[in-house]
């Protein structure tokens, strides 16, 4: 009975995964400004979610291990970390490909890019620690301690990362605590230099011409590969009008607010890709994809945890 249920689950998972891939290419519509590249979110976002969830699961099992000292809890923590690493790599690579195609750069220290890189480093350090301690109980104990310790730093990253850049290329900010994605305020008489992503921006002038308000902003690309003066504008109704492109990139600068007498202006990055999920078909495929990737991770995790636990039991028996 159990075996048949497991087989059914396995086959449905395979079918669901095939369905997601089919839907990703044939059901999800193309997007203006994104082209075919927009389809990648069907894989990118669920893998990123699974990565964070796996990290949390791994930390929980680490706490349980320190309390129970049971090999099964340790095996579960390792299995969750391994699945997390795999999905973390997926999320990073798909994200970088998307960023190159759509935003014109593989990597730009967007807050989410920074936090997923740190997560990848933590996973790597966790496995490095495990491989350099020979004594099994000590290895398990130290790895569990490190996992919990690293987990405590994550809220700080969530808290600090939005402040690293006042603006993000990622479409919505709902999941990033403390970030409002409101762009950055520059002041001719005060803080006139700021950062959008990893681009340094310096306000040069704010002026009114007819019914348009414009700001002259010097942008310096990372490594000073390019500098340019961009002049975004907005019209009488306060709607952004001219949205100049950053040099060599395919994201744009918009002017949100400007006060000519005070010499202040608020500018932001505008990247193609905002409002992707407002399409019903995309939304449903996206939800189904989240669910399927979740189950895939769960399945991988179960198998891996069982294998690790059985292997360690066999080794202990042989040692006896």
């Amino acid at each position, binding site marked *: 009975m159990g075996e048949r249920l497991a087989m059914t689950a396995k086959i449905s998972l395979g079918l669901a995964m095939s369905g997601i891939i089919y839907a990703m290419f044939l059901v999800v519509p193309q997007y203006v400004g994104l082209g075919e590249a927009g389809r990648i979110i069907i894989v990118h976002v669920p893998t990123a979610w699974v990565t964070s969830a796996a990290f949390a699961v791994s930390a929980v099992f680490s706490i349980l291990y320190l309390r129970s000292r049971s090999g099964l809890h340790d095996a579960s923590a390792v299995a969750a970390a391994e699945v997390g690493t795999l999905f973390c790599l997926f999320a990073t690579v798909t994200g970088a490909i998307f960023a190159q195609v759509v935003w014109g750069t593989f990597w730009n220290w967007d807050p989410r890019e920074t936090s997923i890189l740190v997560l990848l480093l933590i996973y790597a*350090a966790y496995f*490095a620690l495990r491989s350099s*301690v*020979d004594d099994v109980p000590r290895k398990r104990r130290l790895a569990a*301690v*490190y996992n919990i*310790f*690293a987990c405590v*730093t994550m809220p700080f990253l969530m808290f600090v990362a939005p402040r*690293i850049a006042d603006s993000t290329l990622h479409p919505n900010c709902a999941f990033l605590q403390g970030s409002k994605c409101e762009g950055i305020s520059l002041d001719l008489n005060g803080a006139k230099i700021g950062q959008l992503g990893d681009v340094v921006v310096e306000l040069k002038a704010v002026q009114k011409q007819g019914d348009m308000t414009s700001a002259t902003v010097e942008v310096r690309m990372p490594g000073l590969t390019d500098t340019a003066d961009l002049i975004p504008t907005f019209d009488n109704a306060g709607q952004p009008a001219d949205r100049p492109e950053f040099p060599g990139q395919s994201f744009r600068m918009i002017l949100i607010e400007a006060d000519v007498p005070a010499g202040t202006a608020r500018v932001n990055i505008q990247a193609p890709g905002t409002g992707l999920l407002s399409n019903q078909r995309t939304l449903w495929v996206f939800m189904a994809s989240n669910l399927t990737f979740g189950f895939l991770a769960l399945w991988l995790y179960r198998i891996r945890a069982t294998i690790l636990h059985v292997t360690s039991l066999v080794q202990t028996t042989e040692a006896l």
Partner: protein
Amino acid sequence: MSKSLLWRATKAVFVRELRSEFRSRQALNAVALFAVCSIVAVSLGLGPLNRSAELPLVHAALLWIVLLFAAFTALARVFVVEEEQRTAAALRLAAPPHAVYLGKLLFNLLLLCALTVLVAVLAIVLLRMQVRSPGPFVVLLVTGALGLVAGTTLIAAMIARAASRGALFAVLSFPILIPMLVTAVRGTALALSGTGWDRCMAPIQTLIAYAVAMFVTSLFLFAYVWED
């Protein structure tokens, strides 16, 4: 265990660390020379920098990179030495785990503060780093040092009995320190460029919160690292 007993044991561990350091001066010599070498290397490598709006950020980043790597070389010693001289077992018998952790933490803090003063002075002299808001600058360095020590002392205890300790210490500490490092660099850049207390308070608060969180977690976890 009574509070005063823990405090007495902590003090004993701390004084023991100080005494053994005064006898050999191993840690201080090695770390001071490391700091001098890296600041000189940075100054020679950069040459004269143009005065620009980004200069405070460059100086702050260099200062913290030097401090970070000096910390990587210095802060693991307190526990590695116990394993090398085979005194760890005796220490386990002689003092409760919390006292060992607190004593070593205090010693590391003292070492890192000395190191920070040295690096900052060398940076001001050799790199011609200009400190336009000295008050926030000093507070940021101190809270940053607190964060560095709180984030690495537990890891130092962890790697003491592992293979390839030095490299592992850096590998394990770095991801833990990233939030603190980013905050410290940004805050120090603000202080170098002459920003007042009002805008420097946010990074200072973040650094203090980080140090406290790491310290409390370490207290919880240290007994697990130190057993056996």
